[in-house]
């Protein structure tokens, strides 16, 4: 993603210089496109990255615009002072609104953004000190060295310079450690299992998008020198959303392409239709709606989706000379690491796991088998914090963890793979594995934005490459995760789990979809990990594989443990034979 952007930046720089040579009418269009692109960048972060659709971005632009309008026109502050205030106000309001609503799921969140978008719009129009529906006028425009922001050319250049800074910052942010976690937000269960606090990251993106919108609002207020509520209505928010969809929400390129195409279509319709039909009328919205429907039917990934294939793609590479990441103090082999005591899980009246006890020790491979529906996956989810037991106790090193979220359990050294592979399909294999090392890094948004995380990034990438080599997929590190075969994807998941430097590794059917040789290699890897002192819990259907690999086996049937012991003892157990083969005649 970032490589494509570096490719696009010279174009943006050229656009900044364009107002000096373009005819006046074009300069004004260019300025508006740039202004919209700033808001759309925030929407790409929200809709494309975090999977949140906001119908309220115009309201945040309004907060920025009204804050500066009130402070400069009514209170006499300088516009330079009010810029940070505008951004802060929008950021703070965004934080409060986000903290309240961001946990809502799916349609509820969409409707919530509509609700506060509308409420803020009506507040702008009805608060008496904001000038009602006439708004605030005579806003001073800041000027430096005879360059006045109310001047069209100056405004357009300033807007595009701001856009350039915003795009660079966002591209840097998305590239780094926190950025990888952000790009995994749409796969929340997986991200949480890698130690990512998804709600908190979503909230941060929400605040960033609000601040970007308010920057656009501030610029607009001082350029137009008036603000009125109609510029910040939900209709305008819808325009922003459409621009983003047109451009393609999956990439920052779309945030710039969308407003261009939108403006092109709109002005084309405004001027072209009356000429074409010889009648003037409001065909604009009608035809615009129809074009949008066609785009949504035919090109769902927008303009950038069409263009992306042509642009060069930069693939993060690992530098093997990077200093290795710090490792967790390993546990002594044979330690009781996870203890499960009397755990029961009810789904309504159905008992999925009944009074279950088990211990996962370091330096040992424990197998969990049982017929379909025996409760293996439920148990897996209970241990990893994805689901919480109805009763009973789960301890990690003597500390009770039942009811704790998945990321807390991950932080204690428990890493897992998923029965249904959970990889971020748009990231490379290497980046996916690096996500596993998320908890071992520290770089946050700010250090990524300013490029201060290079050193740590190199260490993380090197670690990811090391783990990929270990599972035998080192050569595939630059591929997109989605192009791999299912068996390879399972191995990537194991590499990702290993990148977190776990004490216990929980594998959910890792051998499914693997060929014979791959299976042998996996077995060898797991034995080696065991020798290094790792505790491994493995759920598997392949009896040959599991009988040869495990030190201990637990057999589940209808949620209850029916046998536990060495593979040979379990194989001879009468109840196990009955569970698998039916009662003896």
């Amino acid at each position, binding site marked *: 993603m970032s490589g494509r952007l570096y490719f696009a930046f010279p174009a943006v720089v050229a656009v900044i210089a364009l107002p000096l040579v373009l005819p006046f009418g074009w300069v004004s269009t260019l300025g508006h496109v740039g202004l919209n692109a700033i808001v759309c960048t925030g929407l790409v972060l929200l809709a494309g990255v975090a999977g949140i659709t906001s119908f309220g971005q115009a309201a945040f632009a309004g907060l920025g615009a009204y804050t500066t309008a009130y402070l400069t026109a009514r209170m006499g502050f300088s516009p330079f002072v009010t810029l940070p205030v505008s951004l802060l106000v929008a950021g703070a309001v965004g934080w409060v609104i986000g903290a309240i609503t961001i946990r809502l799921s799916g349609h509820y969140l969409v409707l919530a953004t509509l609700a506060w978008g509308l409420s803020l719009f009506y507040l702008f129009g009805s608060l008496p000190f904001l000038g009602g529906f006439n708004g605030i006028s005579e806003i001073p425009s800041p000027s430096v060295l005879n360059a006045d922001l109310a001047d069209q050319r100056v405004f357009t250049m300033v807007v595009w310079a701001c856009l350039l800074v915003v795009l660079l910052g966002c591209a840097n942010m998305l590239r780094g450690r926190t950025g990888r976690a952000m790009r995994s937000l749409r796969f929340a269960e997986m991200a949480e299992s890698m130690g990512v606090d998804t709600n908190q990251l979503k909230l941060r993106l929400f605040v960033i998008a609000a601040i970007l919108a308010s920057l656009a609002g501030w610029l607009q207020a001082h350029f137009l020198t008036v603000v009125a509520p109609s510029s910040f209505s939900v209709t305008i928010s819808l325009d922003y959303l459409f621009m983003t969809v047109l451009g393609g929400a999956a990439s920052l390129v779309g945030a710039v392409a969308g407003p261009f195409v939108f403006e092109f279509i709109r002005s084309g319709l405004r001027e072209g239709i009356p000429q074409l039909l010889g009648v003037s009328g409001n065909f604009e919205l009608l035809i615009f709606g*129809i074009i949008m429907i066609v785009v949504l039917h035919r090109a769902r990934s927008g303009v950038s989706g069409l263009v992306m294939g042509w642009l060069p793609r930069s693939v993060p590479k690992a530098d093997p000379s990077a200093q290795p990441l710090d490792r967790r103090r390993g546990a002594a082999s044979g330690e009781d690491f996870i203890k499960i005591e009397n755990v029961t899980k009810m789904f309504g009246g159905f008992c999925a796991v009944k009074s279950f006890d088990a211990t996962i020790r370091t330096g040992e491979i424990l197998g969990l088998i049982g017929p379909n529906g025996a409760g293996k996956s439920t148990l897996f989810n209970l241990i990893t914090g994805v689901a919480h037991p109805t009763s009973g106790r789960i301890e990690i090193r003597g500390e009770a963890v039942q009811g704790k979220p998945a990321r807390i359990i991950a932080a204690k050294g428990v890493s897992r793979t998923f029965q249904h592979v959970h990889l971020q399909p748009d990231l490379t294999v290497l980046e996916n594995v690096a996500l596993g090392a998320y908890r071992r890094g520290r770089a946050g948004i700010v250090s990524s934005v300013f490029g201060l995380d290079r050193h740590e990034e190199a260490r993380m990438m090197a670690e990811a490459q090391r783990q990929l080599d270990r599972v035998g997929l080192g050569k595939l590190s630059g591929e997109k995760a989605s192009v791999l075969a299912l068996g390879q994807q399972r191995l990537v998941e194991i590499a990702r789990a290993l990148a977190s430097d776990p004490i216990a590794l929980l594998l959910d059917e890792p051998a499914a979809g693997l060929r014979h040789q791959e299976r042998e290699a996996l077995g060898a890897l797991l034995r080696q990990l065991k020798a290094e002192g790792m505790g491994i819990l493995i759920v598997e259907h392949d009896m040959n594989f599991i009988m040869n690999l495990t030190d201990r086996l637990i057999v589940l049937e209808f949620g209850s443990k029916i046998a536990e012991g060495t593979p040979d003892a379990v194989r001879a157990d009468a109840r196990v034979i009955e569970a698998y083969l039916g009662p003896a005649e």
Partner: protein
Amino acid sequence: MPLIVFTILAQDGLANGLVYSLLAVSILLVFLVTRVLWVAAGDLVILSSFTLATATRGDVPGTVWITGLLALAVLIANAAKHLLHGKEDTRWGEHILAAAVSAVAVLAAIFLVPLNPPLIVNVLITLALMLPIAYALYRLAFQPTYSASPLMLLFVAVAIHYAFIGTTLLLFGPDGYRIPPYFPGRLSAFSVSISYQVLFIVFLTIVVILSLWLFFSRSILGKVLTATAVNRRGAQLVGISPMRGGVVAFVISGLMCTISGILIAPTTTLYYDSGFIISLKGFIGVVLGGMASFPLAAIGALGVGFVEAFSAFYTSTYRDVIVFGLLIPILLWRASMLGAHHDEDVH
């Protein structure tokens, strides 16, 4: 508050609230069956009331263009699909029926309306013009995307909303429409007077709700819809096409929106772009019903009508802030009741 003011406000709230609740039920129906947040429902309400208002003045409503062109578009789209991809389309009967209804409606509107027929004829013409529109919208815009993510479906709905605003403005102009009440006069009893118009709205809403209930509990088509709404995948597995449910849901919702438009036409002055706000008031009801329960959605939307009427009295400037601000605590409350399990991905 004096009793007389109270009764006036209560009647206002009741009249608008019942219309909102019809809308809420129709939005919820579409949502449950197709996962579309049908934000253009309010635009259908506006179109319906403008159609009737124009017809009662003896003018041919511009709606004939929409009905006619959409019917033509469905036929062309299907013919093209048939010729280009050779797809076996078994629904030709349905398309031809829709085209026939459209044709009759358009002809009736052009030739009957200028003769100033009785109100009931105009109402029937309005219904006949509106229903094929709902049908065509599903066939043209939503059927090709029925497997898309809910977010894409929402965008399509918003695009249709745009197209509707544009069309309505084009055909009816920027002026507001309002028609005289169907039943003027008031019923006075116990020092309280109720307008016949409100009583009529109450009566008609009850009729609509009862027939919906009968439809869902008695007819096979209703059961098909219920099955699709409860579990799409499950319904598909027993051989119910989700598109079958989708088209029925859209037509029924179109019917309810049209009735809402007819009911609201005499009580409120409407403009070409009032539809979105009306939809949203329906949505508040839908959310109150947890996006699942029809009775709760209807009662919730009724409540919106009352809140609106009374907040307009106390603080008219903040009326809309109050109505939409209410949505946030309601969302939080409903979402918290659902817990973490209802995770419908929207991307």
